[in-house]
Every structure is written in structure tokens, then in C-alpha cells.
């Protein structure tokens, strides 16, 4: 199994990850937002020297280094002569450093990287590859690896069709806590891309999508079950699709990441599923979902038509196993979802 672990971007954290586990195959982190930016929240923006230092350190341990530049919206900057030159220069620097792979969401960058650079070209989840047709398109454009849109993580017919259609590598994001069929994905990632990309910087009121996303799950916790995460125990169900898995969570502490690496490397976790999901910490401290009690649910999801009002399986499962933390004095106790 090839496990890719997230990394916040500074040497101390990298050191902890590299010494904390022998099960990490590759590490991925954001680059400097001044060139391309990324579609997710970033806590650091390592400069080229830092990327060089960390790449060398990872290579000492035989760990691959992947730089994620998956802005979902460049606002057209890459199509201007200055923009193109800037990005081209940056890719050249990453190549000279010896970075193994670059993850991008913009089709233009996929073609650019595959044509002129000798680095693994990875199609980001933010390219939303959810069909064999899109996978074929990106492969022809030059992709070496496609990270499949997690929205189809439980749609085996689609996954198998993609596997049959392309010969490039496939990667699955295992612990995404995003809403199933999340209506905010495009808008939210475009917003992040501008907030975490080349200027001009925005002065925003609040992250509307974030509030909304939390509210929807708090008022309707079955959404937590429907999210397209893959339990560590269920990795074996995906072996015929790929053996490469990616753990999401670039803003978490090394301990949290190592806990995930261990769970997925062992293909087993005895605890709260919320510990593993890369979803906002805010709701991690609200719900308890026993991972072991989810045993077998994948058999339903494998043959489910995803028409929730007809099926009702996730709703029933949510009512059965989700517990809510409730304050009592200064402590916390667990109560069932419905009391």
C-alpha cells in the first residue's frame, strides 16, 4: 500500500512525521501561494529553500515529496504573459529542487507540466474526476496520476469504469468529511483559491460556506454518515481499483496525522470515526461515531442507488450509532442522538 500523508509545511512537523512512522510512502504540502496557490486552507507557505531542504530530508528516508498547487481558480492570471512566465519559472524551480510530484487542478497546468517537466503530474481532487470520460481526458492531457473525486468513493461501478478506461495511476482520498454531493464545493474552493493564492488579498466578512456546511451537519447528523469517507477496515474493498491512498488534513498536528497513518496502514481503528475525518475540528468535539459499529455498512453502500428518501439506510444508521457530547457541570458525557 502507498500512503500519502499531509504536511503543514515546516521542517519540525516533517521531522515528526518521518520519525513517527515507517508507513508513509509520500508527503504532500502546499507551495508558496505567490505563484499558483491552493484550493484549501493553508497554515504555511514554504519558500523554495524550505521546499528544497524538506525534499532532501524526505528523500533521505525514501519518502516521496509532492507539492500541491491545486488552486481551482486562477482568475485567468496564468493566461497572461506575466502569469505564464511566473508559473513556468516556479515549476522549473520545483523541478530543479527534485520535487517528485506536483498536484494541480487547472487543466492548463497539467498539459504544461507533462509537456515540459519531468515530474509526476497529479490531477487534484479539485478537478472533480468522477467519470471514465473525465479520467480519459486528463490521461490524454498528460496526467500520471488522478486523485478521484471522493464523491464517487462509494460508487464502485464508476470507480471500476474509471479503472478500466485509463492506465495511469489512481489515488483515493480516504478521510474526506465533506458533505456528500456538497453543493458548496466549487464556490468554496474558488474562494479558498483566491484567499490562498496570488493577490489581490480579500478582506472577507466570514467563510459563509464553512458556517453553512457545519450547520447542515449539526441539524441533520446523518450527513456525517453519508460523507464519502472510507473506513480503514474497508481499504481491502478498493484493492482492485488502486493501492494508493491519500490522507487529507494539511492543517492538523503531526500527532493527528500519525494517528491516521497508523489507522489506515493497519486497516483498523478502534475509536471515534470523527478522529480520522478531515473535517472541521468544531464538530469533531460534538459527535461520537464508533468506527467499529460501522462494520458491514459498505455492503449496503456498494449496492445503494443513492436515492436517500427511498433507501433511508444512512438515516437509520445515524440514529442508531451517532452520539452527541453533552455538557454536565464542567465535564462532557455522551448521549444518543435522539433522546
Amino acid at each position, binding site marked *: 500500500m502507498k500512503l500519502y500523508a499531509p504536511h503543514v509545511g515546516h521542517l519540525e512537523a516533517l521531522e515528526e512525521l518521518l520519525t513517527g512512522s515507517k508507513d508513509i510512502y509520500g508527503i504532500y504540502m502546499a507551495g508558496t501561494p505567490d505563484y499558483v496557490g491552493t484550493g484549501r486552507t493553508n497554515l504555511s507557505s514554504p519558500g523554495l529553500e524550505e521546499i528544497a531542504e524538506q525534499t532532501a530530508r524526505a528523500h533521505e528516508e525514501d519518502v516521496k515529496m509532492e507539492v500541491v498547487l491545486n488552486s481551482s481558480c486562477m482568475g485567468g492570471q496564468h493566461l497572461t504573459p506575466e502569469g505564464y512566465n511566473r508559473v513556468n519559472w516556479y515549476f522549473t524551480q520545483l523541478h530543479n529542487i527534485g520535487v517528485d510530484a506536483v498536484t494541480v487542478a487547472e487543466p492548463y497546468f497539467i498539459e504544461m507540466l507533462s509537456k515540459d517537466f519531468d515530474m509526476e503530474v497529479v490531477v487534484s481532487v479539485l478537478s472533480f474526476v468522477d467519470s471514465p470520460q473525465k479520467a480519459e481526458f486528463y490521461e490524454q492531457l498528460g496526467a500520471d496520476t488522478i486523485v478521484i473525486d471522493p464523491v464517487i468513493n462509494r460508487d464502485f461501478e464508476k470507480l471500476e469504469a474509471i479503472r478500466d478506461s485509463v492506465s495511469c495511476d489512481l489515488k483515493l482520498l480516504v478521510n474526506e468529511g465533506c458533505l456528500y454531493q456538497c453543493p458548496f464545493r466549487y464556490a468554496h474552493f474558488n474562494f479558498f483559491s483566491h484567499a490562498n493564492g496570488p493577490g489581490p488579498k480579500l478582506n472577507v*466578512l466570514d467563510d*459563509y460556506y464553512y*458556517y*453553512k456546511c457545519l450547520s447542515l451537519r449539526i441539524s441533520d447528523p446523518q450527513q456525517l454518515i453519508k460523507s464519502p469517507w472510507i473506513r480503514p477496515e474497508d481499504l481491502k474493498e478498493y484493492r482492485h481499483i488502486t493501492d494508493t491512498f491519500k490522507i487529507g488534513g494539511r492543517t492538523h498536528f503531526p500527532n493527528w496525522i500519525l494517528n491516521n497513518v497508523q489507522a489506515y496502514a493497519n486497516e483498523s481503528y478502534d475509536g471515534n470515526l470523527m478522529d480520522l475525518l478531515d473535517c472541521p475540528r468544531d464538530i469533531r468535539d460534538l459527535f461520537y461515531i464508533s468506527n467499529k459499529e460501522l462494520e458491514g455498512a459498505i455492503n449496503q453502500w456498494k449496492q445503494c442507488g443513492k436515492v436517500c428518501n427511498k433507501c433511508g439506510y444512512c438515516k437509520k444508521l445515524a440514529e442508531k450509532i451517532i452520539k452527541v457530547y453533552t455538557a454536565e457541570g464542567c465535564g462532557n458525557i455522551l448521549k444518543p442522538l435522539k433522546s
Partner: protein
Amino acid sequence: MTITDTLAKNRGELENKLRNLLAKPVFLIEMDAFALPCGCKGLTINTRGLQFDDLEIFEEHINEYLKKTSENLEVEPSFLFARLVPGTAEVASLNSRVLCNRCYMDFARGTGKQPRPDIYILNFSRRE
């Protein structure tokens, strides 16, 4: 009890009251006591899962709960308000604030419940 214990206890109690009132697991992710350079001081309670509708329908109850929480923390509940995510149903926080003279004047001049798109006033006691 230390101030942090008092905060913890009141955070939990207010959360439970809101959950019982609204029959859903509303979450108070952080309760802070603050003091600002202008002289304002008070409490901020960051909320998740609380909606503007809830405020409108249960205003009387929520007002009363917030007042009680404020009193428990020795903050005079003269100015209670919710901070909204403008243009949406989301309530970002509940607040109890003892206004400094200048900020008091800013609010005293206004009349409606929403002097700014992000502020919904639950209670504003005018000074003599």
C-alpha cells in the same frame, strides 16, 4: 471557582438549554470573556448550528437564557446581540457587552434591531 471553571460551566448550561429549546444539537464552540481597548467588555459565545429563524421564533427564551448566563458571569446584560453572517441564516455568535461611552453612543443613535447587516440586537437598555 476560577473564572475558567465558571465559563466552562455556563457554556455547558447554555448549550443544553438551547438544545432543549430548539430540539437539535446546537453547539457553542467557544465562550470568551473579553476587554477591549475602547473600554467595552463582555462575553462572546461562538455558535454553530444556530440559525436566524431560531432567534426570531425563540427570541424571548434566548434573550432570557443569555441574560442569565451573563449575570452568572457578572457581566451586566444591558446589551445583548447576535452576530450574523450577513445575507444568510447563520448566527456566528451570541454576545453580551457592557458598552464604553463612545460605543454606547454609536448604538444609542440607531433605532432598529439591525443597525448593521451583521448585528441583530436582542436587548439594548438605554441609559438615563
